[in-house]
């Protein structure tokens, strides 16, 4: 009788232990499979900076208002640029204080030829871009997401301090499209202006007017890519649009910020001379004949490997057309040693800034005027 009871109790204990074990393991499995996991590589929400220029649409949806795309972004998703994420109905920047490129470059590399010649600048860039140019030579940054680049934590305060420490008088936002790190750029530029530094950015020009106008008071100069003068090119080669770029160019000019325009000439894609003439006329009429225009030589890169480098004859012809139209400062870039790397006085024709590639070899301006004839050369010289 006693043995039976003991056996019965033992069995019950075993049953209870087994069932408890099963319940615990089962619950663990269920919790593991149903618990929401944060997206891989994304910093915790509390470390992110809220994006500027976006609209809450309700139901957790937001619409980014920063660039021409105006992405409508669902909860948990990102915009086309991959740098702005919607978390719980709030849009955050993933690249604020998170650059993947910090480098000292000559100003001429930008290219800005009418701004502090021979000076060096501290340049910042981050991951990703809002365009998908097939020829991008910075694709290793611009066509990668923030999780795919090696980033450095650097606050705006640290960025400005770094410029002083490395002896740079200017700060540049370049390499990828700075619009996709707008908040970071804005905060650095604002601090840099307070510290008396020169600031500028190199952009594809697809930023929307409102954020652009807010940014320009903290910028001394802008270098804008006018990649072509057809919507077709922008759509097929850059997955973008021409019209927002033209609008940006006009706004920068209106706001009195120093502007230089870059046109990368790609064989067969945008080297039609009639279109180039149209573009030059547009620049003359809307931005002024004093606006420097850089024709840049294409080299095969990223996904455009089958096209050859731009022939020198094409660049020369383009420059000739621009000068015929009346543009006074027309340069040829990415062709070191070309005579059109240099600046010539539009009045007396003398060589006033001699450059070989990015190196300034001779500087013959006095207080912003040609040293030979005194003709005023527009730009930021001191």
């Amino acid at each position, binding site marked *: 009788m006693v043995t039976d009871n003991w056996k019965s109790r033992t*069995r019950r204990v*075993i*049953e209870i232990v*087994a*069932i408890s*074990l*099963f319940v615990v*393991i*089962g619950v*663990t*499995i269920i919790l*593991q499979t149903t618990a929401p996991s944060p997206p891989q590589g994304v910093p915790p929400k509390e470390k992110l900076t809220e994006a500027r220029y976006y609209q809450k649409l309700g139901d957790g949806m937001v619409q980014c208002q920063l660039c021409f795309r105006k992405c409508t972004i669902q909860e948990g998703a990102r915009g086309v640029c991959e740098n702005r994420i919607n978390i719980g109905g709030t849009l955050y920047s993933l690249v604020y204080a998170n650059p993947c490129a910090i480098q000292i470059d000559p100003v001429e590399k930008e290219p800005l030829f009418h701004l502090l010649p021979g000076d060096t600048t501290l340049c910042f860039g981050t991951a990703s871009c809002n365009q998908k140019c097939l020829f991008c*030579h910075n*694709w*290793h940054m611009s*066509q*990668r997401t923030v999780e*795919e680049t090696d980033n450095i934590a650097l606050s705006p305060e640290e960025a400005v301090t770094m410029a002083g420490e490395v002896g740079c008088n200017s700060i540049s936002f370049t390499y990828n499209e700075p619009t996709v790190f707008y908040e970071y750029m804005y905060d650095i530029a604002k601090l840099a202006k307070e510290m008396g530094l020169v600031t500028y950015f190199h952009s594809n020009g697809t930023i929307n007017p409102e954020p652009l106008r807010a940014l320009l008071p903290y910028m001394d100069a802008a270098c804008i890519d006018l990649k072509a003068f057809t919507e077709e090119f922008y759509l097929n080669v850059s997955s973008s649009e021409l019209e927002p770029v033209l609008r940006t160019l006009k706004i920068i000019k209106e706001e009195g910020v120093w502007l230089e325009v870059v046109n990368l000439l790609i064989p067969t894609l945008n080297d039609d001379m009639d279109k180039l003439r149209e573009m030059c006329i547009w620049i003359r009429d809307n931005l002024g004949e004093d606006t420097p225009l850089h024709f840049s030589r294409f*080299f*095969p*890169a*990223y*996904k455009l*490997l089958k096209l050859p*480098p731009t*022939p*020198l004859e094409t660049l020369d012809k383009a420059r000739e057309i621009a000068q015929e139209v009346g543009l006074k400062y027309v340069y*040829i870039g990415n*062709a*070191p*040693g*070309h005579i059109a*790397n240099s600046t010539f006085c539009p009045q007396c024709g003398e060589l006033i800034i001699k450059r*070989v*590639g990015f190196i300034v070899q001779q500087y013959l301006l006095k207080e912003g005027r040609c040293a030979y004839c005194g003709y005023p050369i527009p730009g930021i010289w001191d």
Partner: protein
Amino acid sequence: MPIVATQSPESGTNEPRILTRRLIIILIVGIVIVGALGAGVTIETECQHCDGDGKIECPVCKGIGAIAIPFSVECACRGESPDCPVCGSIGRYNTLTTTPCDICLGKGYEICPKCGGDGRIKLIERFLKR
């Protein structure tokens, strides 16, 4: 006195009880086996193939993500400058361009085939893959 085999009056109801007990035991054993398997699935360890990284270096581009392509280009001096620092007055110079690696699509790494990129591998998976 003849020996009479006696039968407990309750012996008729004992068989279903024994059957029930056996079923319970089978159920418990099943539960324990399922539980053990569940634990094997749940308990994760670092993937030894990728050292928990979830990625392995692309064997083609060696982790760079890019392939360098050399090409020759006409120098802006056209070979007419006697002291061209770019081409040495040859008229052409060699340079490089880069394109994303075809194998890893420019990422520099491939997803670890053992853990599928998690960097963690479940005990039961490890056991089965041995």
